[in-house]
């Protein structure tokens, strides 16, 4: 069985929003990474990941998200997340991801705060 993750991109004047739908595992994490690195190569330095349609993550998927964050920090940019379920929020905190990326309750709050 496979649980394919879908990623949609919404380019904004000052960055981009990635919308994920489905399970963030190793394959899903790589899909997010591919899209994020394309955007970084195109000069995007502010990236918001909206996880409203993702209900399950695993530790391998999160390790890939941490790699994306590290690459963005190396480029002087910012990555943030919004619309996390409570358990995903808790998992991000345990994994240390919340130390390097901002987390917002809503997309509106994130867009306003990040200036997207």
């Amino acid at each position: 069985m496979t649980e394919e993750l879908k990623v949609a991109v919404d380019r904004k004047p000052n960055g981009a929003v990635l919308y994920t739908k489905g399970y963030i595992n190793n394959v899903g994490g790589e899909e997010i990474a591919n899209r994020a690195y394309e955007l970084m190569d195109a000069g995007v330095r502010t990236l918001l990941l909206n996880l409203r349609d993702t209900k399950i993550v695993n530790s391998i998927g999160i390790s890939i998200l941490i790699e994306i964050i590290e690459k963005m920090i190396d480029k002087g940019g910012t990555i943030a997340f919004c619309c996390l379920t409570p358990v995903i929020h808790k998992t991000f905190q345990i994994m240390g991801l919340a130390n390097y990326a901002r987390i917002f309750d809503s997309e509106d709050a994130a867009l306003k705060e990040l200036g997207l």
Partner: protein
Amino acid sequence: MTTTAERQMELTLPMVADIEIAAARAAGNLARELGMSSEKIDEMTHAIIEACINAREHSGCADNRIYLRFVGTSQDDGSRIDVWITDHGRGFDPAEARSRRPAAGVSHKRGRGLQLIEAHMDEVSISTSSGGGTTIHMVKYEKKES
């Protein structure tokens, strides 16, 4: 007087990609039948996913199977689900695995599965021996509001 109702389920699953989702869904369905809250179910399913991934990635078992048993119990004061996840692999040293992991909240790419399991469940115990396989027993409780 306390009344108790039990529901049990046993599954044997092949170690193939994303099979952990099937295990998590089965446990989630049982938990919903018991009236567990979605937040408790989400925590339990994430723990089951990590346990299945650990078995698939690290057990090195020859039979390529994960054996799962769920027991759901309803009582007057709430409900609980016991989950046993077993592999017939090489076993591991839980103390050594815990000693290698970074503190909670510190960014680190791998080796977090057991830490997440322990964070998301109310009780976790591990039976493992070199060459004798591993069973993780974990429990999730939901107390009724009084």
